[in-house]
């Protein structure tokens, strides 16, 4: 009963339009007051502070910065050009290029929003010039941005790893195959849509010399994940430090190699990064206070008992958890969901024999689908803003891709090897 009241209050505040971080903190504050009067509300300040200053979370601003430096330093265009070499000549080729670019970009930035607000700009312009509709271009850009946080590096995996006490390096490896699978699923849908809509085929075929130049220019960007993940697995640096190295590398590429970054442009990039970071961190602060009251009220146990009373069959429990995460993803910001629900779902997963690494991938994929489902789909908002395509138009074009992602989610949920095979090869997962 308390669980229902707490979540109902939170959802009412959010639907009214209270900023998400404040809705979480206010709900937590009211419950604290109800539990122990004004004295206990001091925990609001204590939890909000603790929520924002955990060391692994420092990777968040730095991976956002790496993405913004790539977008501003010319790296994004090189990635797009390189992806064009590989898949550009297929019917509807720029749709495929869009997805492959996002997969490569994902190897440098851990943020879906950095992809949706940066790389998408290049992708949508190029697709419109080539005769694709703005609606189609914007939809593919929003959908493909969700690959970013699944292929390493990844901000959600950093947060999940630090919350669930799971190696972040292991989580990064666990995301590789599912991320590639997401890309393949999107490309299958694009191929079907391309045939039905008779989408354009690129006529210009680059010469051998052009192809070598394009690939050579993109190569330093393409090898970034090897540097980041290799450095973490090799014990050279922690995931947080890896984020700093990714920033320095992105800066070096833009400033010295591509020569498109200038010192004069840096303050704007840093402020934009700070803005995006603060938006996320303030939600984490509120969610941290909210998570505390959930545990104090033993709400996780109540939810676990509720789910297990419906069924104890692992595949049914997993299905219910996926449904809950998908529904929450339509209304609540992804990181807030993760912080609120991990104390509930992690013990439940242990009871049905799902490893925390496997569940981390399942949870992040659910949350990424939430980024493109209305009413609270941040990638939709970001792409709609830069493309001037209304949200309703994006939504009408979106559903085949959402179905494809749900199929991938099903595969990942019920075939643990997809997530765990690669970490096992490095001796990192049981």
């Amino acid at each position, binding site marked *: 009963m308390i669980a229902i009241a707490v979540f109902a209050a939170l959802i009412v505040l959010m639907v009214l339009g209270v900023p998400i971080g404040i809705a979480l903190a206010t709900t937590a504050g009211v419950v604290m007051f109800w539990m122990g009067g004004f004295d206990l509300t001091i925990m609001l300040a204590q939890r909000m502070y603790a929520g924002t200053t955990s060391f692994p979370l420092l990777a968040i601003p730095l991976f956002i910065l790496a993405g913004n430096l790539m*977008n501003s330093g010319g790296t994004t265009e090189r990635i797009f050009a390189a992806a064009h070499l590989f898949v550009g000549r297929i019917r509807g080729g720029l749709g495929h290029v869009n997805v492959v670019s996002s997969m490569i970009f994902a190897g440098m930035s851990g943020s879906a929003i950095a992809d949706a607000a940066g790389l998408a700009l290049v992708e949508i312009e190029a697709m419109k010039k080539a005769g694709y509709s703005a609606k189609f271009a914007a939809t593919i850009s929003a959908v493909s941005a969700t690959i970013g946080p699944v292929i390493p590096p990844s901000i959600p995996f950093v947060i999940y790893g630090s919350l669930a006490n799971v190696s972040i390096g292991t989580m990064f490896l666990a995301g590789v195959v599912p991320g590639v699978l997401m890309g393949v699923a999107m490309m299958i849908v694009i191929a079907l849509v391309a045939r039905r809509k008779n989408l354009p085929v690129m006529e210009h075929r680059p010469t051998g010399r052009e192809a070598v130049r394009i690939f050579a220019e993109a190569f330093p960007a393409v090898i970034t994940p090897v540097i980041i993940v290799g450095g973490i697995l090799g014990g050279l640096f922690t995931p947080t430090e890896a984020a700093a190295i990714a920033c320095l590398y992105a800066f070096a590429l833009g400033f010295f190699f591509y020569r498109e970054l200038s010192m004069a442009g840096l303050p704007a990039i840093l402020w*934009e990064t700070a803005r995006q970071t603060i938006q996320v961190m303030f939600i984490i602060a509120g969610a941290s206070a909210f998570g505390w009251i959930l545990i104090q009220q033993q709400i996780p146990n109540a939810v676990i008992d509720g789910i297990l009373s419906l069924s104890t069959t692992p595949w049914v429990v997993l299905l219910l958890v996926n449904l809950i995460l998908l529904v929450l993803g339509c209304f609540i910001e992804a990181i807030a969901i993760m912080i609120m629900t991990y104390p509930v779902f992690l013990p439940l997963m242990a009871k049905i024999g799902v490893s925390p690494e496997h569940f981390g991938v399942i949870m992040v994929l659910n949350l990424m689908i939430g980024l493109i489902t209305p009413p609270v789909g941040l990638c939709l908002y970001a792409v709609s803003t830069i493309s001037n395509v209304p949200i309703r138009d994006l939504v009408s074009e979106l559903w085949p891709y959402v179905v494809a992602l749900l199929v991938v989610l099903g595969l990942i949920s019920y075939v643990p090897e997809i997530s765990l095979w690669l970490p096992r090869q490095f001796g990192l997962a049981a």
Partner: protein
Amino acid sequence: MIELLRTLDRAVFQAIRWGAIVSLLAILLLLSLGVFVRAVPVFSMSGYDEIIELLMAWMTFLGAAALWREGALFRVELLELVLPARWARWTTRLVKLVMLAFAVTLTAKGWEFTAGSLETVPFLAVSKQGWYAAMPVAGLLMTIYAMVGLLNDRPLGGGTIEPLPQSTGQH
């Protein structure tokens, strides 16, 4: 008087903006230096995590106050879009009241938490109150912005992410 307040408001916003930029840059440099010093141990880097925590706390809380002023904290705008204008205005007022209540609570409880802290930062050997003070200071600013927001009766802004300005080389 109004012009003086506007100038002060702009100055505070610029100070927070530049503070956030410098904090972010400092975090990046400290972390990178940490990796370098571990590989080439030319000097000791103990205690840098305490400075990073300080920078992160102030950047987050003061920055949130700046985004509050801009109406740029993430929120759901669904109800405002579907309700008739009159109802939407009343909803906005209610939201602003909730935000004011939160801001006042953050100020009061943040201050109580800061003033009551006896912790010291191990390496720098100073009181941790300077770290925690980010909350009551940000709460106070939010309270001022919330009261101004209630008085001027303007709609709240949306929290959508804007692309980087053209001047940064964004295409």
